[in-house]
């Protein structure tokens, strides 16, 4: 057996492990209730299908280390073999689940799971379908290497986007109905997914669009580049204006439930922008960011709520805000000062400790007379007193998000931002060039704390109550995951990350339970495959790929491959 075939079989095996994993954690089962393509493919079966396509694609990709590229026919064969292996493992899982009772250990190893995996065709026929279907899908995945690159990309991305559109039914459906476009809704959506016709239409449109962009896109980009500078700036301003108007109109467009979700996304954008200053700009991994969020929320609650236990000055939201900022600065210094001299990993774990301390103290009987213990603090007033409309909180959130984004942008390109860059890349060198690292670290912590506290204050005002349970480690993890997915050090990345990691799980109930599992996988996968995030900041990208670039350069100048060093230096 040659190396390509062996790799294909290993890929198939790994795909099988992935398939067994998603089956046993219960994803397949709980996604079964929704359709991707109405009455044709459920969301549950979509998971193995995607895995099989990916396995086929991966099995036939050129081998980097040995510079081996399989021929066209060979590619298809490799894809089929890998897909068949994955299918075989899923079939084996289904039979195992049916024959042996494992439910006392694995809660999801139910006969129902086996039936889903076997497409309700029984053991023999179901297993055959899985293996043959696996081989077919693997072949389809592998065929992406045979087609011209632009076509392959258009098809693959178009398919993924169509599946994404189907997933977004709970979001798009209500929006369309809200706009009284029921006719369009009926054509495209059914059963929690797309209709077959809708799927074909969306697929055709997205694939054609992507193909056009891939083949003709460079012309458009050249035309933009050829524009005079002032016209380009004007065009940019027009775009920003449109975006701004869209943001203002959003609550009216999407209805009440969705504007709730948009509000939550906004809170996390704010958190992400703050954490981005600490982690992305200054390179200090803070895992206790939730402490700031909690302090902001509790300060607001104590100062504004008429029923706060110890003293209730009953200030309006905007009157409490200065105190929130002062509290933020203080807590930022308190967290910042002890960890000033700590290096990356120590810093992470100490800040994690601070986050836990905050929660334990807010929950304890000791602090109960001031912050209400497990009962929390109720009836926090809304920031806009003249409007009791539930959507009105949306506007302050947007206001602070824009403010924070502007502040972060101007900081990034200022002297402070450059000092942070230097500090992140090499602390000793930064200090040697005269940067006062103590001051800049404290500044980063203080600013990050301010953003976090304001977000917490808005959170308290948005839901009107605070409980200690709202402030656990998961808030920090959410914020961290979203800036990493979006791209550290980049503001657009924060917005994209918040929409994907916070907004989508709120909308897609099926995913809510697997949210953190997916976060974990996203964090690992991003660090392995694309550490700079989806929308990278150019400088960070350069930092993270320094070594590969060095190697490539070496190979270019000397014509030799260096190979990866076994030992790190």
């Amino acid at each position: 057996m040659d190396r390509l075939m062996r790799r294909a079989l290993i890929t198939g095996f790994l795909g099988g492990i992935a398939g067994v994993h998603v089956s046993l954690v219960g994803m397949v089962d709980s996604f079964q209730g929704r359709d991707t393509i109405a009455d044709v493919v459920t969301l549950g079966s979509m998971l193995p299908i995607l895995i099989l396509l990916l396995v086929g694609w991966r099995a036939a990709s050129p081998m980097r280390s040995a510079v081996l590229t399989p021929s066209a026919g060979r590619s298809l064969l490799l894809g089929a073999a890998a897909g068949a292996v994955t299918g075989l493992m899923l079939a084996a899982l289904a039979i195992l689940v049916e024959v042996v009772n494992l439910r006392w250990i694995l809660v999801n190893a139910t006969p129902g799971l086996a039936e889903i995996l076997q497409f309700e065709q029984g053991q023999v026929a179901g297993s055959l379908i899985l293996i043959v279907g696996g081989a077919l899908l693997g072949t389809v995945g592998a065929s992406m290497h045979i087609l011209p690159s632009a076509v392959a990309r258009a098809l693959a991305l178009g398919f993924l986007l169509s599946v994404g559109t189907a997933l977004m039914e709970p979001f798009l459906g209500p929006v369309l109905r809200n706009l009284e476009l029921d006719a369009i809704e009926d054509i495209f959506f059914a059963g929690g997914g797309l209709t077959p016709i809708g799927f074909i239409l969306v697929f055709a449109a997205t694939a054609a669009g992507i193909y056009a962009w891939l083949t003709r896109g460079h012309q458009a980009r050249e035309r933009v580049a050829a524009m005079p500078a002032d016209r380009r700036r004007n065009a940019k301003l027009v775009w920003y204006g449109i975006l701004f108007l869209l943001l203002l109109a959003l609550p009216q467009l999407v209805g009440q439930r969705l504007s709730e979700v948009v509000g939550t996304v906004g809170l996390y954008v704010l958190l992400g922008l703050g954490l981005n200053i600490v982690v992305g700009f200054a390179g200090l991994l803070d895992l206790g960011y939730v402490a700031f969020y909690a302090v902001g929320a509790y300060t607001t609650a104590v100062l504004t709520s008429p029923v706060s236990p110890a003293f209730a000055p009953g200030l309006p939201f905007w009157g409490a805000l200065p105190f929130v900022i002062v509290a933020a600065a203080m807590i930022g210094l308190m967290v910042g000062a002890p960890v000033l001299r700590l290096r990356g990993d120590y810093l992470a774990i100490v800040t994690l400790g601070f986050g836990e301390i905050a929660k334990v103290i807010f929950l304890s009987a000791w602090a109960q007379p001031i912050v209400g213990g497990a009962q929390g603090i109720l009836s926090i007033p809304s920031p806009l007193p003249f409007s009791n409309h539930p959507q009105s909180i949306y506007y302050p959130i947007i206001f602070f998000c824009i403010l924070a984004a502007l502040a972060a942008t101007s900081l990034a390109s200022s002297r402070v931002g450059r000092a942070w860059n230097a500090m992140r890349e090499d602390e000793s060198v930064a200090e040697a060039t005269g940067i006062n690292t103590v001051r800049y670290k404290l500044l980063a912590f203080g600013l990050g704390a301010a953003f976090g506290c304001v977000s917490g204050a808005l959170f308290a005002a948005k839901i009107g109550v605070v409980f200690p349970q709202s402030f656990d480690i998961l808030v920090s993890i959410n914020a961290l995951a979203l800036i990493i997915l979006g791209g550290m050090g980049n503001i657009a990345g924060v917005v994209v990350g918040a929409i994907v990691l916070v907004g989508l799980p709120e909308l897609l109930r099926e995913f809510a339970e697997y949210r953190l599992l997916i976060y974990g996988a996203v964090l690992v996968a991003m660090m392995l495959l694309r550490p700079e995030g989806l929308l990278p900041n150019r400088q960070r990208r350069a930092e993270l790929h320094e070594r590969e670039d060095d190697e490539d350069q070496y190979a270019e100048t000397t014509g030799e491959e260096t190979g990866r060093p076994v030992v790190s230096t």
Partner: protein
Amino acid sequence: MPGRRSRLNLVNLFLWVLGGGILALAAWGAFLTLAQGRITPSAWQSLIVSGVALGSVYALIALGYTLVYGILFMINFAHGEVFMWGAFTAFFAASALNDAGVIDASPVFAFLLVLLTAMLVSMVVAILLERVAYRPLRGAPRLVPLITAIGASLFLQYTARGFYGSGVRAYPGFGLFGGTVEFGPLRMPLVDLVVILSAIGLMFALYFFINRTRTGRAMRAVSEDKDVAAMMGINVDRIIVTTFAIGGLLAGAAGILYTLLFNQVHFFMGFLPGIKAFTAAVLGGIGNIIGAALGGMALGILEQVGPNLLLTGYGIPSANQLQDVIAFTVLVLVLIFRPSGFLGRKENT
């Protein structure tokens, strides 16, 4: 630059005042508690015994952190999850043995069998973790493997939640090591004794392995200097895997000992013991094996005795709620006053 120097001193001054203040508060609290005499000597005694038992579990986990840190200079954030997987395995193995009647027939054999299974599964998890999450990133900027570790930790946690369910699973009273033993005036639960003895036995085994075997010597060489060790013909990659494997074995053992003490398993159970064991490793000086063992014991005792000794004197209600705060405060204080820990080498920080 005189300006900079004075500002740094200001920070130092602030830290010393903060640390000194906390220590003074603790001392005064201890004095008040003892003066009031609310807690009887036998209560102190049982607190200390359970502190040592808990501390020996922390010590076993802390050894995993320290071993990996000594070689890779990174904190394996997901180590608490390796421990949790060991605990779950122990739970299922014990249930199976209980159903088969082995536990009633010969409890010691059953215990050893469960211990072995849990250790092996944890070892496999640790090796996979290294292979998938850490090895491809060797030589990447510091933040990158750290974030991967957090991701891996979440992944392992929520995989356990998906596989085994989200509820707390209680050990159905196997009657494994019930009752108490007496040494003269000292009375202690048999479980605590078993836990302490098992942990000490494993630590001696580790000490022997590191100091007396060929692989142990190679590990020490790699932790001194990877490049030179590689030149001496040591397969550095294999030594790193071995280190993770040993850390996993110890974490698996800690998993079953912890469940013996607390009688339940849960998918989130790795989080706090993980952080506390890390604190223990820092307390003893990260990278130092004896330090981790002693640090674990010290933290366990402090955690059991601390809230009662230091806080009840101030009349704080339900002081035991604040025991996690004590552990973290210890961590912060150690990092302020003696970042290299009590037995650590200076250059580690």
